[in-house]
């Protein structure tokens, strides 16, 4: 394998976008959760909600910051590394990116300032409105970026060729390409699940230390409610999304299931060792006929295998097959966790089952892993195309040298390793402190000289004649 600009650019894009997606998939859900918490506080004046809000908003600030800076990279990397793609696809999906910036990014960025620093500056109503607008912004952002990605998966509403340039002929079909509705649903539910799992894990961790912490008990109950409802819905959404793949990207579906020959009564492979060299599976653990039933809805349905496509049109199989199984396996575990929690809640014992609390902690990162696996299925499964059926990835790369790309890739690896490990450390530290210690409301403006524990770092020499007005 030659490390040319194409391969390096692919690695760089995969790495930077996989890094980036971690943060939106958490902050989309967390923003909505914060809006709910603040709304409940305003409604009930129950201080538990306020404490939880002030705690989770700090986690949000850390995660959102990392999401913003890794996202700015994406808006330039399309041009630096994928200039042919940009020039070809710009007239069609450029507006979707522009709308994301205009409708979502400014909204999030501006009202985030009020959300984080405006607690004492604006009234509770305006502050709540700012939280809601940030949450709305995150969902709007998801709408447009998934729309752009879905068009790349199932392009519609356009005319022209790669050589003469693409142009949109029907904007509604461009924005609402066939796979878009289910993919957006799938992603937003994934974000909510990811957040619920993190909240459940953090709360369970605290409850294992102190079972009487009311804030953590409340947060855990909310997270369980979310899991119990959303995890089964996600299974449904994922299945419908799979039906879209069958219809619009049959080669991807064949790779997901490691189907090689086209036939009815395809077996479902629970596990297998697919190999493109031998055009088959080295071994497989299968249930007969179930494959056709799951993917096409009937045991006697004929489903295309990979050999129906020319070798140069087949996506990598091994990685797609296994990434899909990781995602689904974790999804099933989430459903089980949700039901277990709901059953315990019904019996009034959520905080008193150490086994359940430990399971919650263990499942904390499951959402992130499932999201990244899901995106690997979507993106690797689209190969060898960048715009499915229209533009091949190898034809989309910029006219740049391997030297520059290896330098930037190396720099990304180093910078992201630092940012990620430090960010994770700070977030975990806050989570371990728990909502009560971690939720210092900014104290009144007069008597704050000694500062909060966080403000008074050892390096800080204290007031130097500077006081806040």
């Amino acid at each position, binding site marked *: 394998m030659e490390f040319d600009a194409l391969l390096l650019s692919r690695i760089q894009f995969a790495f930077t976008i996989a890094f980036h997606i971690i943060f939106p998939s958490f902050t989309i859900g967390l923003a909505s959760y914060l809006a709910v918490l603040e709304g409940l506080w305003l409604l009930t004046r129950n201080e538990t909600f306020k404490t939880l809000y002030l705690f989770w908003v700090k986690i949000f600030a850390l995660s959102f910051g990392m999401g913003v800076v890794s996202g700015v990279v994406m808006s330039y990397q399309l041009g630096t590394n994928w200039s042919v793609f*940009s020039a070809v696809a710009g007239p069609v999906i450029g507006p979707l990116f522009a709308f994301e910036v205009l409708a979502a990014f400014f909204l999030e960025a501006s009202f985030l300032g009020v959300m984080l620093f405006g607690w004492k500056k604006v009234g509770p109503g305006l502050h709540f409105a700012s939280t809601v607008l940030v949450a709305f912004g995150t969902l709007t952002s998801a709408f447009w970026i998934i729309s752009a990605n879905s068009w790349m998966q199932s392009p519609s509403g356009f005319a022209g060729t790669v050589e003469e340039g693409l142009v949109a002929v029907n904007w509604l079909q461009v924005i609402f390409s066939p796979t878009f509705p289910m993919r957006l649903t799938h992603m937003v539910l994934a974000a909510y699940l990811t957040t619920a799992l993190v909240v459940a894990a953090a709360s369970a961790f605290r409850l294992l230390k102190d079972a009487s912490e009311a804030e953590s008990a409340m947060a855990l109950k909310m997270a369980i409610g979310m899991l119990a409802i959303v995890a089964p819905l996600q299974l449904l959404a994922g299945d419908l999304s799979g039906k879209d793949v069958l219809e619009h990207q049959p080669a991807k579906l064949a790779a997901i299931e490691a189907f090689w020959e086209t036939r009815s009564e395809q077996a479902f492979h629970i596990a297998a060792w697919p190999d493109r060299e031998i055009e088959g599976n080295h071994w497989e653990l299968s249930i007969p006929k179930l494959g056709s039933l799951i993917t096409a809805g009937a045991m006697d349905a004929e489903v295309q295998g990979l050999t129906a496509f020319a070798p140069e049109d087949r996506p990598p199989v091994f990685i797609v097959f296994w990434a899909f199984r990781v995602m689904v396996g974790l999804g099933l575990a989430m459903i089980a966790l949700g039901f277990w929690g709901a059953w315990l809640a019904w019996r009034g014992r959520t905080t008193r089952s150490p086994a359940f609390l430990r399971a919650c902690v263990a499942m904390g990162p499951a959402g992130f892993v499932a999201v990244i696996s899901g995106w690997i299925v979507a993106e690797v499964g689209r190969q060898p195309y960048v715009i499915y059926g229209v533009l091949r990835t190898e034809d989309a790369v910029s006219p740049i040298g391997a030297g520059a790309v290896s330098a930037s890739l190396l720099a990304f690896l180093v910078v992201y390793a630092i940012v990620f490990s430090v960010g994770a450390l700070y977030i975990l530290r806050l989570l371990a402190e728990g909502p009560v210690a971690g939720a210092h409301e900014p104290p009144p403006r007069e008597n704050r000289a000694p500062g909060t524990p966080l403000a008074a770092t050892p390096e800080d020499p204290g007031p130097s004649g500077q006081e806040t007005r």
Partner: protein
Amino acid sequence: MDLDLPLIWAGIIALAVLLYVMLDGFDLGIGILFPFARSPRDRDTMMNTIAPYWDGNETWLVLGGGGLFAAFPLAYAIIMPALYIPILLMMMALILRGVAFEFRARGRTRGKAFWTGAFAGGSTVAALSQGLVLGGFIQGVTLNGEAFGGGPFDWLTPYTLLVAVGLTAGYALLGSTWLIWRTEDDLHGDARRWAWRAVLASAALLAVVSFATLFVHPQVALRWGFEDGAFDLARLALLSPIPLLGLAGLGFVVWGLAKGGHVAPFLGSLTVFVSGYLGLAVGFFPNIVPYDLTFRQAASAENALGLMLVGVAILLPVILAYTVWVYWVFRGKVGADAGYH
């Protein structure tokens, strides 16, 4: 109604980039000035003056990049690979200084020191690399058909280095005058001293860059009235409001500093940036990839530009309104304890 969509979009992108330079300029300037602060507490204050705004400010950069992709995909597809190294360098720097806002507040002794350094270093490198991008753009890009056809280090010339230093000095001017406006006591006094140095450096570098720019391409010299040794005063007179605006801005900064004004130096600095921006734009307009591709040649399909214009017409006024509102909410002098941390 027949709208000149490519021209309108060139104007929108130009406005986004100008707003970016002015807004993120002052908050990058804060980072550039970070090493000169006398105490960690002053650094806290400096950061607090921009903490609610920086994210919104940086979004104009995303609009600049995303907008260029959407409205002029061909230009985006040529400029980005041409300036690959400085752009990626800018990204790394912006990442490190961006996360520093939160990380610095969370770090303990060593962590805080590291992120203080990352904020200062990241802001400075981001400013320098933006100067390299600007310089590399102004000096022109080599084309091969409708794609970038030059080498990976085309952007590295004495001219681009000069622009990089000039832009960094300019950002330091914006940052120091912003601090004069938004801080008190010792830090306010320090900011005044920084502003004096920054305005002198900016004025000198602006003059040198302006002069050097006349030599990067014959088209630029021609615009300003120089052709084959001959000089056309009428052309220069036509454009003279631009340098005069810059001089007025510099004068306003100096006057504000001398008489102890709080807002005047910042407003003067912004005026200098508007003038410098227009002065450079005049040189390469109507090219969007100097000096071989015009904005019309690079424009996206009419229907894409039209659709986006509807979005802009509705959303841009709203964006500007709530941006102004956020600045209003956090108005006034800021202290070290203003953060929520």
